[in-house]
């Protein structure tokens, strides 16, 4: 009997040690500012990532309970293998096979931005999920209904209690949990990162040449290390009067047809491209900048010279090398990380 107790005691000790180690691992693993990244803009002081909060956020992210038909989850349009985009789909899908008007963007490195959606209409990650949850073309649900379902469920009240110490699930904690998971989705382990951080990787000759091309022609908008400057611009895509971009938020003429400059991280995984998903391949994206850009309302100044459109003058070799460089932005650890997958 005494020996049995001893064994149990030792086991408990080991489990405690393991749990502590896992917690520490998670703390580090779930959110750590990569050495080559700036300070995040998310207010972590209000919502630090914990193991319980992150796992709850993950469960919610993959749970269709957030939609009105209980079929569409966040993960439905944001698939991990495609860097949390809807691979192959030009526009976001929703309940009853409805279509949104824009391409589902990747969910990665969100802690470093405070302008969400293609038009920047949302300025706080904690407010962002309300858009797809309540959009009639996406999850088509109402917030009071979501809270009702969650509070009435078997497991969620316990999980919220464990994560936040609350006995009722409210908007605030629902959004905090989702933010903890999404903030944890940091992509910073591409070959590019390993080269920049001098972790032993080296660019091939073509990649190095492509990096030069990138720095000359792309980097002012797609600023390193996030590969976006988090601003809005018009890049000469054909205008569609049904989508005025940033103007729909600000009502300023100068914002007509401006869209969020997306990150190029994991760009090889996130086809189709642009806010409307109208370009199918990265080659065609590069061709867009070389040959197809149109003189649109509010075309970005970077593409204008003396008031005339000046497309990006890449040679065939430069275009090819640029693609090689863009391939180094793929983060296979990110897309295979089991911590980010549906459990």
């Amino acid at each position, binding site marked *: 009997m005494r020996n049995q107790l001893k064994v149990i005691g030792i086991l408990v000790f080991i489990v405690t040690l393991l749990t502590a180690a896992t917690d520490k691992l998670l703390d580090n693993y779930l959110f750590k500012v990569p050495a080559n990244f700036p300070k995040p803009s998310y207010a972590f002081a209000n919502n630090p990532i914990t193991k319980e909060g992150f796992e709850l956020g993950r469960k919610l992210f993959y749970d269709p309970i957030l939609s009105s038909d209980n079929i569409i989850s966040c993960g439905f349009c944001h698939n991990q293998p495609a860097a949390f985009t809807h691979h192959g789909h030009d526009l976001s899908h929703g309940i009853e096979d409805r279509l949104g008007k824009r391409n589902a963007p990747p969910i990665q490195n969100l802690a470093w931005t405070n302008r969400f959606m293609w038009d920047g*209409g949302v300025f706080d990650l904690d407010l962002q999920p309300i858009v797809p949850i309540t959009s009639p073309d996406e999850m088509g649900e109402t917030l009071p209904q979501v809270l009702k379902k969650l509070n009435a469920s078997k497991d969620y009240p316990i999980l919220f209690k464990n994560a936040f110490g609350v006995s009722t699930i409210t*908007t*605030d904690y629902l959004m905090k949990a989702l933010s903890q998971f999404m903030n944890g989705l940091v992509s910073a382990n591409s070959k590019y990162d390993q080269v920049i951080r001098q972790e032993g990787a080296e660019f091939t000759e073509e990649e190095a040449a492509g990096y030069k091309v990138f720095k000359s022609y792309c980097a002012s908008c797609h600023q390193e290390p996030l590969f976006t400057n988090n601003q809005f611009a018009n890049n000469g895509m054909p205008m569609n009067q049904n989508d005025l971009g940033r103007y729909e938020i600000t009502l300023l003429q100068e914002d007509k047809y401006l869209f969020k400059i997306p990150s190029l991280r994991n760009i090889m995984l996130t086809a189709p491209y642009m806010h409307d998903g109208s370009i199918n391949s990265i080659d065609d994206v590069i061709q867009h900048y070389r040959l197809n850009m149109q003189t649109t309302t509010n075309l970005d100044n970077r593409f204008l010279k003396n008031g005339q459109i000046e497309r990006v003058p890449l040679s065939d070799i430069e275009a090819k090398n640029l693609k090689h460089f863009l391939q180094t932005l793929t983060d296979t650890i990110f897309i295979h990380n089991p911590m980010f997958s549906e459990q």
Partner: protein
Amino acid sequence: MQSTDAVKSLAPINIQFQNMANELPITLNTGKYTNASGESFSISLLQYFVSNIELISADGKVYTVPQDSSYFLIKQANPQTQTIQLNVPEGRYAKIKFVLGIDSVRNTKPLSKRTGVLDPSSYEGAENMYWSWNSGYIFFKMEGNKITENPSVAGKKFRYHIGLFGGMDKPTLNNIKIIELDLTKKGLAKVRWGSQPTIVCTADVAKMFTGNSTITIDQFGTVMGGPTSALIANNYHQMFKHKTTIN
């Protein structure tokens, strides 16, 4: 001790909002009203935010209701919401001031500072007062139907959802309206222990169709977040009047 004193020095007062359309009290769905352009209409939904209330006494002292408890959603469908109960220092009040809508700072606060009527989950269905896609509150919402002469023809539905707080990056449309009502003509509010005065205000929603700009249901049946919202907000800025004070 101090907190007891503070509580002691505050006495109750009500502010009541009586919604009207062209001097007529509003009856949802069945009431028939006429706007400045002669269009007949009925109202199916009417609600608006009153916030950041200040009371100014006859000798010029300003009492600001603590901000966290100074947000009220006035709903035509719920008479209880039409009377705001406050606790203010004793005194003779000659003026009230409030925001029709939600101040820009609160529009940008974390969710933990958006409780009660500010909680985006607190609105059921058509009563929603929060724009998710352009983060911010709807300040004023009125929906209804134009009534046609011929009862066999369906009236045009109108939807006026007015919000926009001025933007995050650069100045954009700001439809926040500050309302000031002088109480001296129709009666000061005498706040003292043992009584509960009520400041009665009217809100004539038909004013949204006229004033600086003429708005017709035919031309502007649906206004939500676009530039026309500024015209409507500038019109309804004039909709409040002090009717009387019951001391």
